[in-house]
């Protein structure tokens, strides 16, 4: 597949739904931390207008139990496995990355630098990437928050620190109130907002970063159709991930892949990847297409 379809981290348990994982071009794990975590107390989920809020809080088995018990089973799925790692310090990111470095089943490591539901590490994103870079030779994808004024500057910083690619974007903080009591509907009040409303934000981030750095970008945020995926590709993404849409439609990967091909073909692209960065102003390709009158 020219434009790989992945899941967004935390939006699929491949061991609970292996047939869904097998419909992807690569499976991205829920974020793994050094120690086991129970995550945040419920209520963890609230529907909002045009999307949903989650406050899961990195529930997971910890890196050792993950590597010992889950990773071998993930390897049996037959799809490349990307491991999302997170933590609360540069040391945490280094520890997880080092532990995964020798695991042949790990195709890439995604660094969750932007979980909206836990405390942040004191270091900058670039420092966290640098720590992971020093600990592994695996491909490193830096997952960035859309909640920064100049995401392109953030992208340059993490690429300079050794990131091989970018995952854009994580959820953005949101709040939902009970309409009667006017109290927060999530136990921890604020959660990560995802779904339809995130899509233009994700597009803007991919567009800005793909112009700023020359590394592959996995675009994600509100993708539920092939046209949404094609838009991210046009903004500069070379792969697309599905998040919230997997919750309502476990069969979305195959459908989106098929729609993506059809939407690209309808616009004269033999391969959806040919539309990459077509939206980027002044790019050679967009000028060429425009002059051909096929855009």
């Amino acid at each position: 597949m020219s434009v790989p379809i992945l899941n967004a981290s935390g939006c699929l348990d491949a061991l609970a739904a292996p047939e869904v994982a097998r419909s992807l071009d690569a499976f991205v794990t829920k974020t793994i931390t050094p120690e086991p975590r129970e995550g945040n107390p419920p209520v963890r989920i609230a529907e909002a207008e045009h999307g949903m809020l989650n406050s899961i809080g990195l529930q997971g088995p910890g890196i050792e139990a993950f590597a010992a018990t889950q990773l071998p089973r993930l390897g049996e799925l037959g799809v490349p496995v990307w491991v999302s790692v997170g933590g609360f310090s540069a040391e945490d990111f280094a520890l997880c990355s080092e532990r995964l470095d020798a695991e042949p089943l790990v195709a890439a490591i995604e660094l969750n630098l932007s979980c909206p539901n836990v405390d942040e590490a004191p270091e900058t994103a670039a420092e966290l990437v640098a720590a992971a870079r020093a600990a592994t030779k695996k491909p490193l994808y830096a997952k960035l928050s859309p909640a920064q004024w100049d995401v392109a500057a953030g992208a340059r910083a993490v690429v300079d620190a050794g990131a091989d690619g970018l995952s854009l974007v994580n959820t953005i903080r949101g709040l939902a109130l009970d309409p009667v009591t006017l109290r927060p509907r999530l136990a921890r009040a604020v959660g990560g907002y995802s779904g339809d409303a995130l899509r233009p934000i994700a597009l803007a981030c991919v567009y800005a970063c793909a112009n700023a750095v020359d590394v592959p970008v996995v675009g994600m945020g509100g993708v539920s159709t092939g046209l949404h995926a094609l838009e991210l590709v046009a903004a500069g993404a070379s792969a697309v991930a599905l998040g919230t849409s997997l919750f309502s439609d476990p069969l979305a990967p195959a459908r989106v892949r098929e729609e993506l091909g059809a939407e690209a073909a309808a616009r004269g692209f033999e391969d959806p990847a040919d539309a990459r960065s077509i939206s980027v102003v002044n790019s050679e390709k967009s000028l060429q297409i425009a002059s051909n009158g096929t855009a």
Partner: protein
Amino acid sequence: MRRERLRVVGTQAVGPYTLVRLRRGRLQPGAPGQFFMLEAPGRPLPRPFSLCTASAGELGFLVEPLGKGTTAIASLDVGDVIHVTGPLGRGFDLDVARPLLVGGGIGVAPFPFLSERLGAPPALLGFRTAFHAEAAGLVPNATVVLDPVLVTDALPPDPGDVLACGPEAMLDALARVVPDAQLAREAPMACGYGACYGCVVDRDGRYVRLCLEGPVVRGGTHGSPTGPLLPVAGAADGSWAPAGQSPAPPAKEHVSDDASNSTVAG
């Protein structure tokens, strides 16, 4: 996991509830207590419902229109088509010698199908009003109590094998009286198949996903966020949807909005 577009073939008012009947397609009814995710037209997330009736070629769901999602589903017309995924989760263990169905409010939802599979065992159902109690007509051999009488007040001294569904407060009270009761719990969930980690309940100090480990769990599991093991700040604000109106003095009037109305129990 199977997901299909199913056509509405009938809707029927049952007291304040609506029984929505869908042509089954290739979806299996599964075991009583298992649930399905129903598309809520116009809403971002589907809603979980346990199967209420499984007459030939159909799947029936009892819906209480409380929030936007449940109202959208209860407002479906014959001929409308929605996406349905399921059956999901773990249902009731039917290997029981002396079954007694105990339910409250919309928690009656899984009982028609359950009763059919168990050969019409006795049922004890609590409702807030006689209007709500019209739903008892869906369950054979039902004894009805009305607010302020509680189902736990009316429980026989030797209740046998209790299979229950209802508001969290009722299930917690039952679990204290009948420790091995099978309880159909509920929690807000986004996906229904283990992907989102949203529907966790506290089991022995660990958060487990109700959609995979349940929704039917044994008594003694603290599914309620007000349960004793992991008290949760802000959880008593009505964010959790009760499975139905409690015949108990309602701890909280149900707050209707969005996904919080989704009820695995019904």
